[in-house]
């Protein structure tokens, strides 16, 4: 089971990285033009990704279907708290300066851009620093989560 989930993890990662690089989201110029509001492709890309997945997930949740490795499908809906807003503001500021975010930075390095390695090391440093400061885990609905429903098989 574990091994199967690892294979799925690798495949989903590869598909994700492929789409990001093929759409040129791993280039500084693409992100910078987006944030300068000169080009709206990335906003439209994100919007159409949400528009595709939101209704399907909603429907699947209503039917409370079983996922392959993670038990019954459960979506997370936390209330906004202070840490969300502070974290979001820090993330946005760093994103504007570095011109890349976690997944595109990996695809950027894969395209041969050596400075992407600096961004990746910096990201790890920032995440680690937060872990050192944290007195308790923060809730976010975008990160890996402890499963809420009883898993039908190992989730690890």
């Amino acid at each position, binding site marked *: 089971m574990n091994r199967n989930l690892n294979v799925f993890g690798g495949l989903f990662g590869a598909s994700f990285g492929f789409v990001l690089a093929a*759409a040129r989201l791993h280039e500084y110029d693409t992100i910078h033009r987006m944030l300068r509001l000169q080009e709206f492709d990335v906003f439209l890309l994100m919007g159409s990704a949400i528009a595709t997945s939101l209704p399907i997930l909603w429907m699947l949740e209503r039917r409370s279907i079983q996922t392959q490795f993670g038990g019954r499908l459960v979506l997370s809906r936390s209330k906004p708290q202070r840490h969300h807003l502070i974290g979001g*503001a820090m993330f946005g500021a760093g994103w504007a300066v570095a011109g890349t975010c976690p997944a595109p930075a990996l695809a950027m390095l894969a395209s041969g851009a050596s400075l992407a390695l600096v961004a990746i090391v910096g990201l790890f440093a920032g995440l680690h620093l*937060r872990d050192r400061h944290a007195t308790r885990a923060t809730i976010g609905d975008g990160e890996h989560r402890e499963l809420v429903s009883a898993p039908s098989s190992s989730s690890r």
Partner: protein
Amino acid sequence: MNVLPDRLPWFVAGPVLGMLVVGLFLVANQPLGASGAYVHTMKAARGDTDRVIWRVWYFAGIFAGGLLATVLGSGFALKTGYQALTVVWSTPVVAVVVFVGAVVMGYGARLAGGCTSGHGICGTAQRSPASWAVTATFMATAIVVTALLHTLTGGRL
């Protein structure tokens, strides 16, 4: 190899990405967030017992997928990257700027519990109020900071 179009249009990439989000929920009941991949790769490196190994595979997969798209597209070539920034500053300065930006970004992602993919796509698609709030916050901040950068560099960025 130039088998891929110069740039995959948003109306193809977006829905494909949306289906990948649905797919990972169907398989693992988990969001397709990238900061979680970093977190668990870091946990694995630190030897934490609560690391999730498939997230490390997922992390490596993003790199591999990016490499495949590069090879099938314009081709792999070593370069520094960040060309627009190297016009404004020398490469060592650019490295420091990018590093500082990335540290702040990483800290913020961990504090907020997700990044552009995790909150911006997967969280919003789960109809999470927290994710919509984080996404609105980082979008607004990033647009303001980019405008500031543009002004501070005398329009060169």
